[in-house]
Every structure is written in structure tokens, then in C-alpha cells.
């Protein structure tokens, strides 16, 4: 190979070079470059997705031939208490988590956007929960919420914030939901904080100086400069997070397994329980597919933003 030296002048045509010459044309190179990714997505995303649609409309059961039954799975699920509870949980979990992450993330971003000592270290510490494998860090939370040795309760009692023995976090209905939301907020907060921080940094300083010259205090500056300028970033962060929170699996699976009495099940965890542990693949697939409308909604909203920026 002629490394470093670039040939000048017409390339001498040789029979073996034809393919390489073709690849010099965008019309051929482009498709050649996207084909591997396209194949992968067709075979392992689009095709399984179609399978999921078929499963969901069949009475498929592990190890048994299946029949087409139309939309009966989707409708029949509404007769199951576990599913109705899950449906409600999914919205409570997503709503509470995303709202908390947004408010806390905004606060944290504003705090990080000041002159600080050890800026890098603080940023690193804040981001840490987001990079550690969720299943493993959730194990840590499981131990923190343990019914006998809960360090959360120990601290609460020591500070006089709780009455002994303190809540049984993972064993009581509303406390369990509080616990899974807490862990989700803990894990997702860095994404909000760091992204909003990046948005804050990109706001031109002159806007603040002009606002200050007009006599705007810190609160007025936040409402009339910071928030409007951050709107696109906030919208995108919330949309991304909604999908990932709505389809969350790891935290609930490790922390509560959907219990107590289905009070923390999400679509993904219920789908796994019904589809794999009980073997009703058809119903499990139907439960998973209830994630789809939300996904579509978010993708549609995203494309409106992203298209405007990218294409």
C-alpha cells in the first residue's frame, strides 16, 4: 500500500480495481456503507418487531403451536388486575420520575454552572450513578432498603425523622413505588443535570448582561432568559427520558420484582413475568407492545425537533 503518498493523475485501469472505482461514487458507496447496519436492523429489530405483532395477536404458549386470535390479547389484558395495576403504575412511575428528574436536574445544573472549586471532581461524582451497571447499583439500593437492616431507616431514626421501626420500603405498596422512583431518579438525574448544564453554558452571556442592565433580578433573569433559551434542550431531555423511564426494567426487576401485589410492575417486568416465567408469549408480547404508542408519540415529537436541527 502506498501509505502517505497520494497518486496524482488518472488511475491506470486494471480489471481488479473496478469495484473500488465504483465505490468512489456516492451513489454506490453510500448504499455499500449503510447495508451492514440496514441488514442488522432489518433482521434483528424490524423482523422481531413484526414477530412481536404476530405473537401479540396469537395464543402463543412456549412449546405449543399457536393460532391467530386477533386483538383478543390486547383487550383481554384489561380484565387482569395485574395489567390494570401495571398500566397505572407505568404512568405514576414515569410521571413522578421524570418530573423529579427535571426539577432536581435543573437545580443541580444551575448549581454546577457556577464558579466552583474541584469542578471536574464534582461533575464526575454527580455523573457516576449514570455509568455504573444499573442492575448492580440497584442491588446496593436493595440492601439500603432492606426490611431488617435498612440504613435509610437507621439514618431517619437517628435524625429523628421517622418513628421506629420506620417504613418497610419494599414490602408496602406506596413505599415500594417511592423506592423504585427514588432509584430511577438517582440513576437518571445525571443525564438531566449534565445535558441541561450544556444548554446553560451555550446561552450567550450578553443576554444576561442586557437583562441586568434593564434591571432584571436573578429570578426575572431565570424566567425571561434562562428558561426560554433552554426550552429546546428541556423538551428533548424530557422526551428521551420519558421513553427510557417508561420502558424501564432493571430497577423494578431487581428491587421489587413488581411486588408487593403488583404495585410496582411496569410493562417490561410484567411482560417478562407473563411471557417467560408463565410461558404465555402471546400475552407477554401484547403487554410489551403497550409500550409502542408512547414510543411512537415521542418519536414523532422528537423528529419534529431533530429534523429541524439536523436535516
Amino acid at each position, binding site marked *: 500500500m502506498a501509505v502517505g503518498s497520494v497518486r496524482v493523475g488518472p488511475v491506470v485501469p486494471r480489471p481488479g480495481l473496478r469495484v473500488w472505482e465504483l465505490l468512489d461514487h456516492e451513489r454506490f458507496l453510500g448504499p455499500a456503507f449503510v447495508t451492514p447496519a440496514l441488514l442488522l436492523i432489518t433482521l434483528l429489530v424490524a423482523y422481531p*418487531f413484526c414477530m412481536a405483532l404476530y405473537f401479540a395477536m396469537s395464543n402463543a404458549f412456549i412449546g405449543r403451536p399457536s393460532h391467530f386470535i386477533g386483538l383478543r390479547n390486547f383487550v383481554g389484558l384489561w380484565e387482569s388486575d395485574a395489567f390494570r395495576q401495571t398500566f397505572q403504575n407505568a404512568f405514576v412511575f414515569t410521571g413522578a420520575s421524570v418530573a423529579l428528574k427535571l426539577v432536581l436536574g435543573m437545580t443541580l445544573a444551575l448549581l454546577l454552572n457556577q464558579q466552583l472549586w474541584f469542578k471536574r471532581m464534582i461533575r464526575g461524582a454527580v455523573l457516576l450513578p449514570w455509568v455504573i*451497571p444499573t442492575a448492580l447499583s440497584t442491588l446496593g439500593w436493595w440492601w439500603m432498603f432492606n426490611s431488617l437492616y435498612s440504613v435509610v431507616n437507621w439514618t431517619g431514626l437517628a435524625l429523628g425523622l421517622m418513628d421506629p421501626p420506620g417504613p418497610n420500603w419494599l414490602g408496602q405498596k406506596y413505599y415500594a413505588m417511592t423506592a423504585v422512583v427514588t432509584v430511577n431518579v438517582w440513576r437518571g438525574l445525571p443525564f438531566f443535570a449534565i445535558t441541561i448544564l450544556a444548554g446553560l453554558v451555550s446561552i450567550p452571556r450578553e443576554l444576561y448582561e442586557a437583562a441586568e442592565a434593564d434591571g432584571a433580578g436573578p429570578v426575572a433573569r431565570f424566567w425571561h432568559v434562562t428558561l426560554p433559551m433552554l426550552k429546546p434542550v428541556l423538551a428533548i431531555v424530557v422526551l428521551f427520558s420519558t421513553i427510557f423511564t417508561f420502558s424501564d426494567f432493571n430497577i423494578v426487576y431487581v428491587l421489587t420484582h413488581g411486588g408487593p401485589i403488583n404495585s410496582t410492575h411496569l410493562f417490561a417486568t410484567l411482560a417478562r413475568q407473563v411471557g417467560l416465567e408463565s410461558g404465555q408469549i402471546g400475552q407477554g408480547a401484547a403487554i410489551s407492545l403497550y409500550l409502542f404508542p408512547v414510543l411512537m408519540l415521542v418519536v414523532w415529537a422528537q423528529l419534529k425537533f431533530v429534523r429541524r436541527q439536523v436535516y
Partner: protein
Amino acid sequence: MTVKRRPLLTKIARHLGLVPFLVFALFPFYHMALTSLKTDRELYDRHAVPLLIREGPTLEHYQKLLWDTGFLIWTKNSLLVTVLATTVSVVLGTIAAYALARLRFFGVGPFGTGIFVTYLVPTSLLFLPLAQVVHWLGLADSKWALVVTYPTFLVPFCTWLLMGYFRTVPKEVEECAMVDGATRLQALLRIVLPIAVPGLVCAVLFAFTLSWNEFIYALTFTSSSDEITASVGVTSELIRGDIYFWGGLMAGAVLGSVPIVILYVFFLDYYVSGLTAGAVK
């Protein structure tokens, strides 16, 4: 204004505002590490202070984890799957991203949208039918199932991330090289890729982290102790019946996170830039 007369005090106040956030972010790790170093006697003593170690740190949980469980095999599996899936995904993602960012050809628009939609499809939507596909491929209960399926979320991610980077490379640089006689492929290899190195590093790091952290596919497609990854091994094999060996569990959680933490410490800035790339750009 008092604010300007007391700069040091306000500076301290700013840092105090961060303290609750730092405690919230870091305490679980502190508690995890602490538990893994405690003797069982202290761990299960309900009158002991859970925030400190009194009876000397001990490595017995780590010893048990490494020699009496399959932890080393699980870690090896995780590494194998992660390295292979990352390599494949970054290569496929790089060429797809280059094509999408730079070339004009039939179907480029829809394909770009397709990549973006795929990027947002959650793994928990597809694990049931994919389990069937994995079975048909003859890869059921094999770590190779993970090598094959992880690129489904890594390739869209890498493509999306790298498209942004390729767009920042000025077109003229590449055109200059081609005017000088380089082919498009040569221009890509010698001119564009070297400029996009920060983006490539970012893609590698994120792909590595995402596949090391992946859980639902690993849990669904593999089950025997020789094939599972570290996350699955620690969460399923170390929990037997109703008695939990908390010391060992926490040791597993700590050690299972180590590879990511090492990368993280060295490449923090890449993580920050990658995290914001998707949303802000």
C-alpha cells in the same frame, strides 16, 4: 450589595447547595463498598452503626466471591461480549454515520430516520421475539447470542453519535484530498477519521459501557452459569432462596462495576461530551 462584599461566603454557600446532591449520588456506593468489607458478625448486628466499620475491614467476601462462585467466568463472559459487540458496532456505526452525514444517495433520508427510530426502541420491547430469533439461530443460552443482539442497540447509538462528529469535519478538507487524487475511501481513512478521533473514542466508550451494563437481554438469552454475564451472575446466582449473603452480593456489585469505573476515571470528559451530544447538538 452584600453579595459582592462577601465573595468567599457566597462561594461556600454555593458549594453547600451541592452537598445534598453529592450525598445522594455517592452514598449508595459508599454503603455498598462498606458492606462488602464488613465481617458477617458486624453486618448482621442490629445494634451496630451501619455507616462505619468497627471490626476491621475484611476481604473474606471478596475471597469467597472470586474462588467459590463463578464470578471470574461471568466477568470473562462480560468482557468477551462487550469487546466483540463494541468492535462490530463501532465499525458498522462509523461507516453508516459517514454515509449518512456525507454522501447523497437513494434512501439516505429514510435511512437516517430509521436509525433514529431504532435508537429509541427500548430493549424491553423486543426481548420476547428476539429470544425466539436467538433460539432459531441456535444460540439459545450462549454468550454469542449477546454478541449478535447487542449491536441492535449499539449500532444505532454509534451511528447517531458519530453523524454529529462527521458533520463537524469541514467538507473542504476532504474535497482537497480528493482533488489531490485520493479516492473517497482514502480521504475517509487518512483525513476524516483522524479528525473524528474524539468522536470515535466517545463511541467506543459508550458502546463499551452500554453493553457492559445491558441486563434484560443477558437475563433472557442466557441462563447457565458458564454463559451469563457479571450483572446477571451477581443478581441471580448469588441470591439463593430467602437467605441473602449481603457481603458477597455487595462485593459482586463493586467488582462488577470496576471496569466501567476505570474507563470513567480516565475518560470523564468524553462521557460528558457524549452524554450531551445526543440531546444538545
